[in-house]
């Protein structure tokens, strides 16, 4: 298991675990980040990333990306 920030652009991975505050986690789940779901990195800048989750493009900051484990 490693944080999403370690992932390179273009790779697709399965989400293993989502950390962080309950509220934020719930928001991520509503946006399509669920354990077992796929996430692909579109672009990455200093750990801030744009990812493809269930065909939606979501921008997430470094702090959050660090809490998503793949």
């Amino acid at each position: 298991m490693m944080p999403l920030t370690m992932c390179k652009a273009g790779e697709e991975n399965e989400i293993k675990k989502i950390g962080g505050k309950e509220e934020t986690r719930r928001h991520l789940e509503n946006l399509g980040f669920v354990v077992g779901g796929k996430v692909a990195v579109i672009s990455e800048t200093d750990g801030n990333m744009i990812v493809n989750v269930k065909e939606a493009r979501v921008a997430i900051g470094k702090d959050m990306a660090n809490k998503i484990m793949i």
Partner: protein
Amino acid sequence: MAVKIALAGNPNCGKTTLFNALTGSNQFVGNWPGVTVEKKEGRLKGHKDVTIMDLPGIYSLSPYTLEEVVARNYLVADRPDAIINIVDGTNIERNLYLSTQIMELGIPVIMAVNMMDIVAKNGDVIHIDKLSQKLGCEVVEISALKGTGITKAAEKAVALAHQKKKVTPAHAFASEVEDIIAKVEDKISSDIPQEQKRFFAIKLLEKDDKISELLSLMPDVSAEIRELEDHFDDDTESIITNERYVYISSIIGECLTKAKKGEKLSTSDKIDRFVTNRFFALPIFALVMFIVYYVSITTVGGFLTDWTNDTLFGEWIVPGARTLLENIHCAGWLTGLVVDGIISGVGAVLGFVPQMLVLFIFLAFLESCGYMSRIAFIMDRIFRKFGLSGKSFIPMLIGSGCGVPGVMASRTIENDRDRKMTIMTTTFVPCGAKLPIIALIAGAFFHNSGWVAWSAYFVGVAAIICSGIILKKTKMFAGDPAPFVMELPAYHWPTVGNVLRSMWERGWSFIKKAGTIILLSTIVLWFLMNFGWSNGTFGMLDFDGLEGAALEAAQAECVLAKVGSAIAWIFAPLGWTKAGNGWKMAVAAVSGLIAKENVVATFGQLFGFAEVAEDGSEIWKSLSLVMTPVAAYGFLVFNLLCAPCFAAMGAIKREMNNVKWFWFAIGYQCILAYIVSLCIYQIGTLITVGTFGVGTVVAFLLIIGFIYLLFRPYKESNTLNFDAKKTVSAK
């Protein structure tokens, strides 16, 4: 029978586009999540008794941000007769997650799969018959933008609303979960209709704390929650979320046939790789901003404004109106009121409309092409250092057009603390109405040089950054901003109609303002200025034939001068005193609280813009006689930073939703404006003239204090956590 139909769906799935098409209204459509922050009502075209309600976009019925609360409260508490659930066909899997929740409300639902034109272009096929069967509602294919299928969707929704059929969802979770939901349903008191029980049962299991307000009897479901959590080794909320996605995954294969894609990246992704690139992101952003403001303020907009001010008003309208009124032998005072009062006051403001229109075109373009949410993402890296979130940048950018929508756009910021800070600082950005003040000061004191306008934006941004740092270190705002999470819509070309409509809507509100508030205040000001105590009796003052010092002495007798002088001492340390004209500056700044354009309108009257109408820039000369350039720059900065106009203050009050916070915001803005303006004048005067006095010492002390606040060690305090739920219930 009157029926209400609500439009519900994910952010940016086309609800407002559909709303406009169905009702014929002109609500602004943008391409970023959170354009609609308040629900909007309209009548369905051709059906007088059908109300359509446009709701802000939501990702689920468990709200995260304020605008999501608005939508959920409407759906759950007001219960519309039918819901049109709009689903973005290009991103159907994620959109269906909300649909499964909407189906549980027990309200008749029509699913409108939107953006079918793009789905077809991509070569994908959505099997609506399957979708309808699996989710238990009628499904129609539409394209809100092209207008296809929308009448069918609306008619079906109206028919459903009239039928008043009881609806139950077709989807089901794993049997263990279903058993427990059934158990909880049995515990819910019988005053809740059967079809709504599933919704309440799930909300009870999810431990939703707002649900108690809707239930008369709160059943104890802790045993069921424990049973579920033990079985799945997870919390109930995640279990149910997961069950929804599992159900969707199980049906998506039958409902959607995807065309084989050769390329992995879409055009939008390619653009994103470039514009959010580590090296190019900021230069590209800076270039875009530079083009927007350079074109609208300096070149095209400036040219149009000069022409309107100097030629249209200066050479044609003002002398024309005077000649006309004199030819019809109108009473002298009435000619004065119309020409010197109304036309010069309102005209001074209207002159800036072209400049604003150009700026509004750019802003509308930025909002509707999809770059807006990227800006938030790019700026997040930087804003995070000042204690603000990247999402704070959207309100500020919109605020450069007008502060009212800017302040309202802060609703999309999920963290209460970040949002309050954004509301307080958004109006530091020069809005369209402050442009006239900038142009006036630049023209009168600095040979129209471009740096004045640029520095005004710089001062605004610096004020935001410094406020962010300073406020962050206070107990009230301690803590980190919420992590950045934002959906990025695909880029698309804005339609010309949408951009022009938005430009016109916003521009028109300025013109309307000139015709109402500003017209009224110029009339009041004219009377206050032309009546006074002459030789001990109250009456109309006669300024005819007076010039220079004699004119000023006569003017000092008017009511306005008396009132102005009473408050002018407050502004004396800012250098608004030269030649006994301090009251004019004080009056202008105070009238700016009504509307910022008023500052220029007031100067137009006080210094007799119309008297010297052959040369529109004549007001510059009179103005340059009463202030030193340093004081004038301080005056400009004061007006940029102090409390905004009444309309924007109203927006701040609404969004803060708390009297104490409202006054704190207004007080902070005014005090900051006063201090910065004082420092500019005192230290500027020391440098240019060499005057050193008490004021200079005060200024230096203030600067030292300011630097201390900026750099003092930052003690992390985690004791104060804003309770988002509490704010939600207050709304």
